[in-house]
Each structure stands twice: as C-alpha cells, then as structure tokens.
C-alpha cells in the first residue's frame, strides 16, 4: 500500500501551517520528514493517519493493505502513550481486543511481538517500572502487534537520552532489515534522518512547504560503514535548515 499526499494545505484559524504539499510514500520505504520547529511536520503526520483533517487537499491510500493488517496506519508517539494503569501485556492486548480474535490468537500475537522487541520478561511490568527506552519498545511492540502497513512515527526517540536513542535506532534498523516495513518518520534530529531514511523530506519554515527531497541509496545495514558520506548529507541538510531555523527563531520574537 502506498500513501499519496495530494495538494495538502492546512491552517489553524488564520495560521497557515502547511502549504501545497505533494508527496508519495512508496512501499517498504522509510521517509523521514525534517524541518525547523513549528514547520508542521507533526501536523503532517497526524493528517497522514487521519487524526486530523486537512483544510485543503487529500491523503490517498493507494492499493490494498495486506489482508493480515489489523490497523494499516499505526502511530508510534513521542511520549509513548502507554496506559499507566495497564501492564505491558494488557497495553498490547487493548489494541487487539476489537478485532474478533480468540484469546489464544491474541496471546500468540503478544508473545511474538514481545519476543521480537526483546521484552518477553516484562509482560507483567507496569509502565512506571520501565525506563524510557523500554517504554518506547513496548509502544513499538504494540504497533507491530496490529501488523501495520505504514508506521507513522512522531519523533519516537526524542524523549530518550542519547545512548538509549542510539540503541533503539539500531533496533529499528535491524527490524526494518527483517520486516521491510513502510514508515514515515518525523524528527528534528538530522543524524536519525540520515541513518534511517531512504528519502529525507525537508520542510521549510511556516507555512511548511517541501524544500527538497534527498535520497540516500546506501542500504540501511551498511550505513555504519559510510559515515563520511552520511556526514556529508547531514551537513547539506543542516545548511539548508540553518537559515530556516534562524528565521523561525526571529519569527517567534516578532510574535
């Protein structure tokens, strides 16, 4: 299944947030969206999964999601969004309950995703007992449990410290190597973008417009060995964003 963004513009009252966005998210491709703060990248992600309605333009689903998919468009949130009153197992069970699965099927799915995210020993733990990195792994496990066609990730690593972030980034890369999922990954961290993105979309200052799309053709698992090229790309991206970021700051001052 592909996602097509067609002529999207969005505004909150008089404030234009996004303007004339056109983009195609192909299957098995990770698209990273970067841009200065307030450029509307998270808004774009909410539009993509139907959590908000665009003032103009449409988001189109092209092709059928795989029949196994329970929730084709699935989010991973920056703040994890785990229910603090449910343990790890029940947090995942909650999103499976309404799909007419038997108790055994649900149990099988949960055991499987917990194994894939290396959380099998923490089934009964409450979120408060887990570190930030583990909480986000639970959220990833929950997202995987509904077999998404497209993962929509909203700064999933931003709330974590840099070591945890690095570990989880590697987890995401190896997960993609195994499962080749489609993803839209919003981040303000350019390093994450060049490590994870097949395509990097740079949004400009508000109202956010696509400034440039950069493609990186190095396979994800080999990127570790091409640090120089990646740094080059990151520098290009930073130069492009620096001016926008400065302008964004000035705009804040003028408000």
């Amino acid at each position: 299944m592909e996602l097509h963004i067609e002529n999207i513009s969005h505004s909150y009252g008089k404030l234009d947030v996004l303007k004339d966005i056109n983009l195609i998210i192909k299957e098995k491709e990770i698209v990273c969206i970067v841009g200065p703060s307030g450029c509307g990248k998270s808004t774009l992600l909410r539009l993509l999964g139907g959590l908000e309605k665009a003032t103009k333009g449409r988001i189109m689903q092209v092709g059928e999601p795989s029949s196994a998919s329970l929730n084709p468009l699935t989010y991973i949130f920056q703040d994890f969004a785990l229910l603090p009153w449910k343990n790890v197992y029940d947090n995942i069970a909650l999103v499976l309950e309404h799909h007419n699965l038997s108790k055994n099927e649900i149990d099988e799915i949960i055991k499987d995703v917990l194994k894939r995210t290396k959380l099998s020993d923490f089934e009964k733990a409450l979120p408060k007992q887990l570190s930030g990195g583990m909480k986000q792994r639970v959220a990833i496990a929950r997202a995987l449990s509904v077999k998404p066609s497209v993962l929509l990730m909203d700064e999933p690593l931003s709330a974590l410290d840099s070591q945890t972030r690095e570990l989880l980034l590697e987890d995401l890369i190896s997960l993609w190597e195994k499962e080749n999922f489609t993803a839209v990954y919003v981040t303000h961290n350019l390093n994450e973008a060049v490590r994870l993105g097949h395509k990097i979309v740079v949004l400009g200052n508000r109202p956010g417009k696509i400034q440039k799309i950069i493609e990186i053709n190095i396979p994800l698992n080999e990127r570790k060995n091409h640090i120089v090229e990646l740094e080059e790309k990151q520098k290009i991206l930073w130069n492009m964003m620096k001016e926008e970021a400065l302008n964004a700051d000035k705009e804040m001052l003028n408000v």
Partner: protein
Amino acid sequence: MSEKKEVEFRAKGFVYKKIPFLGAFAFIVLIILLEIGTRYNYISDLTLPRPSGVFAAFIELYDSGLLFEHLIPSFTRLFVGSCLGIFLGIIIGILIALFNTLRASFLPLISALFPVPKIALLPLFVIWFGIDEGSKYALIALGTFTPTVIATYAAVDNVDRNLIRMGQSFGLSWMSIVKNIILPGSLPGILSGIRISLAIGIILLVAAEMLGASYGIGAYVLEAGSLYDLERLFVGVTILSSIGVFLSYLVGLLEKQLLSWRN
C-alpha cells in the same frame, strides 16, 4: 598553594520527611497539658472541659446505651445520603464531560447550585420529602452531589488527550476508549472529589440533625450545647471528628487499592 576549604552544603531544609508517631505524641501532650491546666485551675472549667471529664461523659453515654441510639441513625443518614449523592454525581459528572450538549445545558445549573448553602434548602426538602428521614437523605445527597459532579467532570477533562488520540489511532470503539482510557484516567480526581464530598456530608448531617431529629450525633451535640454541657459537647465533636478521619482513611485504602499504578 592557597587555602583548602570544603565546599559548604547549602541545600538544607525544604525537604519533606516523614516522622512516625510524632503526630500522636503531639496530640497526647496537648491532652495532658489541658488536663493539668484544668485540674490546677490555670484554665477555668467554663473555658474548656477537662479531658478526663469528656472521657467520663463518653463512658456514661456508652453505659447508658444511648451511644448507638445516636450513632446508628447518623451513620445510616450519612451512608444513604452520601452514597446517593456521590453515585449520581459521578454518573452526571461523566455524562457532562463526555457530551457537549449536556455540558452546555447542565453545567451552568450545577455551577449555580454549587455555592448555595444546602442547609438553606432544608425547609423545601421537608415539604418535598417529609420531616423524617427523607429530607435528611435529600439534603446530604444534594450536598455531596454538586462537589462530586464538579470533581468528576474536571477529572475527565484532565485525562491525557494523547492517550485518547492513541486509542483512536488504533481504531478503538467509543465505548472501549471510555472504559479503558477515560474512566481509569479520571479515577484519581474522582476519588479526591469523594474525599471532599464526605466531609461536606458530615457537616450537613449535623446541620440536618440539629434542625429536627431526636436521635443522632447532631441532636446530641445540640442538646449538650443548649445546656452548656461542655463535656458532652466535646464527646459529640470528638465522635464527629473520628467519623471524618475514619471515612478519609477508607478513601485512602480505596486509593491505595485502585491507584497502585501511580507513584
């Protein structure tokens, strides 16, 4: 090399520390001081009753068998009235928070009712529900109802919106979101609302019993007060205070049980 000096520790104080038994100790010291004061006439009998006298009055009340004659009707009124008020309050509070039309139509009404001293409405309730138990139940129910509604709808409003978005993004039904996200998320606020409602319930219980009851802690206190019998007055006040502390303890237990996922 210049002089060597240890860096001074400056983060003193402003730290909450639990000191066990000091509360009970302070209470006992106060009682002993009062006892000594009244016994040796530092404090006149007319100013404050002697603690041992209050205790003797309590024993007398117990021996006469009247203690339960007063306690049981009071407990029944408080129980029936506040259960009714809190139960309805939680339901209406949740409905008001969930449905915009209900919120728009009923919230102004409840906000207007909230600051009215409910005791002023007792004559009305006597006309509606009779001079007996009905009017007392109604008074306590109304008094606990309004704070519960307001605490409940505020608690529902305060449930993390991101968790609700999460539920929607996974395609959960409206019912499932209410049951799994909104209700458990608003429970802490609802429970602290119940705590306040129960305290208000005790105040109204006494007020109702003072205005028309032959039995009940309120009636007992009123009778003692009109005779300026300070010992018995203090017995009544102590019983009321104990009921309050006991109910607050029960809510605390409930919180420990239901909100173990916090902290």
